[in-house]
């Protein structure tokens, strides 16, 4: 008999959630978050505390010094930490979801011994180099190449929107290693490389963005960048399968963050409408407000269900492409609706710096990009449709 359905977190998971909430409450001041976004800086002063909490080793196997928790625990951190320290989540995403997953699952023993303990101690950071000017949603139209040379490789190409590359020690670069095999299938002939950021021929330029200032994204240019054989993750030419898995995890991870931010925005708005009076009536008692808040609450809870179902499936190593597309499509929309719904409730008090709801505008530019990255929402919907047996529409 199968285990019965269980929607509850375990006692330890609930404790972890409380711990992260407490952390955000104690250390992540609103004012500092606003300044950091405006100044476009990563709050490095807070990162050390994340390491102290040992969250940097959360999903890393015990034998490499980690805590070997499941993906569900990581989602709990993503959800709660997004309420105050969004850029830390982005770093946990590059270091744990990508680097740890790719190296830990497909890397050789030497790579694991070299990198995983450093991730646990928060002493090494990674940047992502998959998207190119030619396409993020159309990731497989990449042009970056890696040619064999003296037992190693020479890399050439340009990568766009390389999250956190400017703060990274290593970049995880996707490149073509076998052009011929890609003629029959575009997913073939690709390899992943761990490229040190101090390599000769590698330049990193920050891309100015509207929103996401604390995280920061970059353009990476590689001109005859030489790496050794040990830079390849797993087997050469097999990278698409590895990466596709990580990309599923990433989507669920971002979905968890959207649920967290949506909940925070909703809480801010609820606090506001409880206090605010309009013509002697408490605003929170008005029907229009209650209708918006009721709907957002349903939406947050339903997207959370998708997120944790996704986490559960990933923890059990089930295929997670469709659930991840569903979770992010839903959660990104919900976060947007919570934000815009909130703005419509608070009106021009949105511009009062002394109120927490002032952050709705900042959060708008944090959540809205999730409609287009990673992968445009259209793509998520088409992927779901394709999985139902409908033909490819693009």
């Amino acid at each position, binding site marked *: 008999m199968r285990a019965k359905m269980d929607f509850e977190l375990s006692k330890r998971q609930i404790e972890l959630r409380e711990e992260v909430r407490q952390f955000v409450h104690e250390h992540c001041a609103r004012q500092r978050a*606003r*300044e950091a*976004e*405006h100044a476009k800086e990563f709050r490095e002063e807070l990162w050390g505390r994340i390491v102290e909490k040992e969250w940097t080793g959360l999903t890393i196997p015990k034998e490499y010094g980690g805590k070997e928790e499941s993906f569900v625990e990581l989602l709990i951190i993503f959800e709660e930490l997004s309420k105050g320290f969004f850029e830390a989540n982005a770093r946990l995403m590059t270091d744990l979801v990508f680097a740890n997953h790719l190296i830990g699952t497909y890397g050789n023993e030497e790579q694991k011994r070299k990198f995983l303990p450093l991730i646990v101690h928060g002493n090494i950071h990674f940047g992502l180099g998959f*998207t190119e000017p*030619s*396409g*993020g*949603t*159309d990731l497989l*139209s990449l042009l970056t190449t890696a040619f064999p040379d003296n037992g190693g490789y020479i890399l050439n190409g340009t990568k*766009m*929107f390389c999250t956190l590359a400017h703060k990274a020690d290593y970049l995880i670069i996707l490149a073509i290693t076998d052009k011929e095999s890609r003629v029959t299938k575009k997913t073939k002939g690709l390899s992943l490389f761990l490229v040190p950021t101090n390599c000769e021929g590698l330049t990193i330029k920050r*891309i*100015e*963005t*509207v*929103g*996401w200032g604390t995280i920061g994204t970059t353009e990476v240019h590689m001109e005859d960048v030489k790496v050794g054989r040990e830079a390849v993750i797993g087997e050469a030419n097999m990278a698409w399968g590895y990466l596709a898995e990580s990309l599923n995890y990433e989507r669920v991870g971002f979905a968890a963050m959207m649920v967290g931010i949506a909940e925070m925005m909703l809480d801010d708005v609820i606090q506001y409408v409880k*206090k*605010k*009076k*309009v*013509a002697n*009536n408490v605003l929170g008692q008005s029907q*229009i*407000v209650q209708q*918006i808040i009721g709907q957002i609450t349903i939406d947050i809870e339903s997207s959370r269900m998708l997120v944790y179902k996704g986490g559960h499936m990933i923890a059990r190593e089930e295929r997670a492409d469709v659930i991840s597309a569903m979770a992010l499509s839903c959660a990104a929309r919900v976060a*947007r609706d919570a934000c*815009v719904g909130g*703005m*419509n*409730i*608070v*009106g*021009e*008090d*949105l*511009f*009062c*710096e*002394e*109120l927490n709801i*002032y952050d709705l*505008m*900042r959060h*708008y*530019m944090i959540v*809205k*990009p999730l*409609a*287009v*990255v990673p992968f*445009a*929402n*259209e793509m998520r919907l*088409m992927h779901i449709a394709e999985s139902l047996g409908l033909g490819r*529409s*693009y």
Partner: protein
Amino acid sequence: VKIRESIHYELGEEQRAIKDTVQRFASIYLRPINREIGEDKTLWQDCIREMASLGILSVRIPHEYGGIGGDYITQISVIEEIALVSISIALATFCAHGVAQDAILKWGTKPQKELYLPLMCKGETLGAHTLNNLWERSETANIKFERSEHKTGWLLNGRSNAVLNASFADVFVVFSQGKEDTNLPFAFLIDRKRQGVKIDEPKAKPALYASGMGTLSFDDCFVNKEEALGTAKERSAMLSSISSIFRVYLSAVYIGLAQACLQVGVDYSKKREAFGRAICNYQAIQGLIADSSMEIELARTFLYRTGDTMSKEIPFEGQAMTIKRYSSELMVRIAENMFQIHGGYGFSDEFAIGHYMRDAAAASIIGGTLMLYREKAAQNILGLAEE
């Protein structure tokens, strides 16, 4: 008042000529400096002077006060053209300065008009107002007037937030939010340099960088009788007419920005390739473009109908609320849809759409939210008294 036999929305020759002038100014002068103008006050002021010299700041003002004597349709078409390039400048110049001009023109005394209007047309005196805080009854905005005990006049205390053009305005049309004493004047024209007036600009602006949005506060600011705008009796007529004009101007800004979003979305969809074709060839993209275009077309038609009603001096309060609600909603939707077309590049600083979308969200709640307008519309239709 000229009564036309049928509804007629084509611009006349003169209106067309003014619109063309503004279009040229917007594309040749404003577009190249649009990015820096929010950070650079000198640039901002030069731009305003240039607009004034072309008559862009005085469309609605009669010739006798130095304006070009245009009607509301002309004004709306001018606002749209500026908003197509810079929503912030359009908000500051029309929704703040322009509304203050309209308020003085309609409710000011002859000396007030003679004092302010010619200078406001030239852009030497800039105006703003505190309308934004009236209908939301903000907890932090609470301007009150009381009779001064010592001198013949009144004392102002309190503050008003999210005042457009607060950074640059020389004169503020300030409305009372106290409802206790209806014998008191309801609004005043207050000089920026007056003692007790304080203007705070936000440390880190979240959006609308060049709109000069700020907080206006009064600490025992003394005003005399000559500075009162309108009388206590005119209170409700004045509030309803000025806020309606504000709503229509805001709507013109919204539709202008929506059009700007559609244009960049269309351009991008033709250039950008994915899976071997320009993305404009995909149904998912085409749908967004078709819907946006339809919505703008419908909204614009209603906007010009409202302008026509205004020019004919027929009551237009209901129409003003309808277009404000509809256009603010569609602007946000279209900005988001066009952002969607841009994919990851949408939030790259290099492309306009991320800026447009952020500004659209912020601008949509100026002058009252969707929620408020739904409520008011229902009250109107059902004949229920306002609370």
